[in-house]
């Protein structure tokens, strides 16, 4: 069109890589941090892993607006539900609520979601809610545009009964590979580990993201030496 502004008229969308995997005693969720409008990166440090309750999180992909608002509804429902229930809501309940909203409004939404977390009944669990509003309980799942590039990798690397560290390493590796191949994924890697002991967030800056084959490594910062 007029050379440049066209991209900004696109919807703000998360061409994304998100994933969640269960290990012995909890779940690890991971995501890149890129939000783009067309080819313009609107946010390079996005947090796509949003809390629904203290111990349930949701990975969002698709329209940033749709998934943000959907998440806020689910947060609200879960808060009400927790009060009626007299305890923390189950992960399955959170997933069901997200799924129901995604499904009932499928014609108006663009939302690919992963709900994961820990509750005292089921321990750690992962639920995938892809575009149409299906709800599937899975040992691990990947989502977003970047996921297409790493199905083989994940199928190869995922094992049941991993330790927390093994699982965390698996998630970081998988997301970094997707970020390398997918132009719509990139930036940093955010992870959330949820277990009975609580929630641990970690953040891997862009220059520390492991490089895939053929990529140029980021220039390493040199320690400043006084002349």
């Amino acid at each position, binding site marked *: 069109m007029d050379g440049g502004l066209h991209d900004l008229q696109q919807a703000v969308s998360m061409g994304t890589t998100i994933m969640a995997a269960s290990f012995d005693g909890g779940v690890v969720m991971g995501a890149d941090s890129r939000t783009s409008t067309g080819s313009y990166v609107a946010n390079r440090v996005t947090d796509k892993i949003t809390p629904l309750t203290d111990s349930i999180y949701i990975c969002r992909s698709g329209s940033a607006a749709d998934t943000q608002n959907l998440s806020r509804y689910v947060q609200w429902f879960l808060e009400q539900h927790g009060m*009626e229930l007299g305890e923390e809501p189950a992960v*399955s309940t959170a997933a069901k609520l997200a799924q*129901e909203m995604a499904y009932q409004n499928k014609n108006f939404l663009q939302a690919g979601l992963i709900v994961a977390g820990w509750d005292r009944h089921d321990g750690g669990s992962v639920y995938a809610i892809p575009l149409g509003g299906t709800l599937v309980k899975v040992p691990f799942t990947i989502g977003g545009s970047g996921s297409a590039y790493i199905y083989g990798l994940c199928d190869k690397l995922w094992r049941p009964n991993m330790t927390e560290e093994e699982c965390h390493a698996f998630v970081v590796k998988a997301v970094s590979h997707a970020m390398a191949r997918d132009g719509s994924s990139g930036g940093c890697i955010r992870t959330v580990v949820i277990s009975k002991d609580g929630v641990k967030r970690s953040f891997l800056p862009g220059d520390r993201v492991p490089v895939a084959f053929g990529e140029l490594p980021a220039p390493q910062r040199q320690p400043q030496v006084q002349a």
Partner: protein
Amino acid sequence: MSGIGSGYDLSTSTFSPDGRVFQTDYAQKAVDNSGTVIGIRCKDGVVLGAEKQLISKMLESNSNRRTFPVDRHAGVACAGLAADGRAIVSRAMAEANNYKSFYGDPIPGHVLAERLATYTHLFNMYWSVRPFGVSTLLASYGKEGPHLYLVEPSGTMHRYFGTAVGKGRQGAKNEIEKLKLEEMSCREGITAVAKILHQVHDEEKGFEMELAWICEDSGRQFQRVPQQLAEEAEAAAKAARLENQEQALGKLDTSLAELRQELAAAAAELRQELAEQRKELRQELAEQSKELAEQRKELCQELAEQRKELLAAVAASEARVAAAQKPLVDLVTAAMSALADSNIQPLPHAARQEQEEAEAEACSGSDS
């Protein structure tokens, strides 16, 4: 209406001066008059049992239900107005369905109980409706384990490990307290429930018993207790009741015999006492009559003497009178003969009266 303490029972939207809502109390009374319904929470589940009064001799058995499944994992037993109970059941089913379709999980027992209580309570707040005449025992088995709740017409809700409502509730509660529920399985529980229902039922008319449970044996699903088990439980209950009655009869017999013995002893003692008293009295009587006879004799003697004396006195005074009269008679005789000799005529009566009046006037006339 005003100032006489009446009119406070017409609506649930009016409090009485001492803070009661009479319509709510009346609804509770409807429950209190119904057949007994009891529930116990055993170690592996919940058992509900209902005593159903027979409406008609021609009623098909098992056609007037008191227990109802609400979901796979929950069910209720209703005491009170059966029709109101069905309304509660239908609401409970709706709540269970709604929860499941919204949250994807079966409704937890306490949420269902709370929602039923809220629903029931609504009917205590508006003049246009009346409270439910129903107490609902709710049994559920979910993630939290087996639970038993009671929802009352006022909208109160409590969790119990055993409770009873209806006519025989007091006796039933006493019996439930004696059970060791934490050691009892539901298999044993159904017999216990059947026994209690038969024990607290005290009418000539028979009744139909309905048992339902939710436990490991029922696959954690609410269901009526299988017919064979229910029949076994009922047979055991009837046998126990018979035994109880026989025992009570035996006790009565022995106490009757004791009483009889006591009575006989008391009677003998009394008889003896009576005889003694009689004897004493007779003796006393004899003495008294003897004394009396003596007194009489004395008195008679005295009387005779006095009479003799009196007669003598009378004779003496008569003689004295005759002696005194003699000179007078002589005088009169002499006067008469003298008068006859002198030939003086006595005045006729009228002339004599005139003369007397004239003399009297002459005496008083000088005063005027």
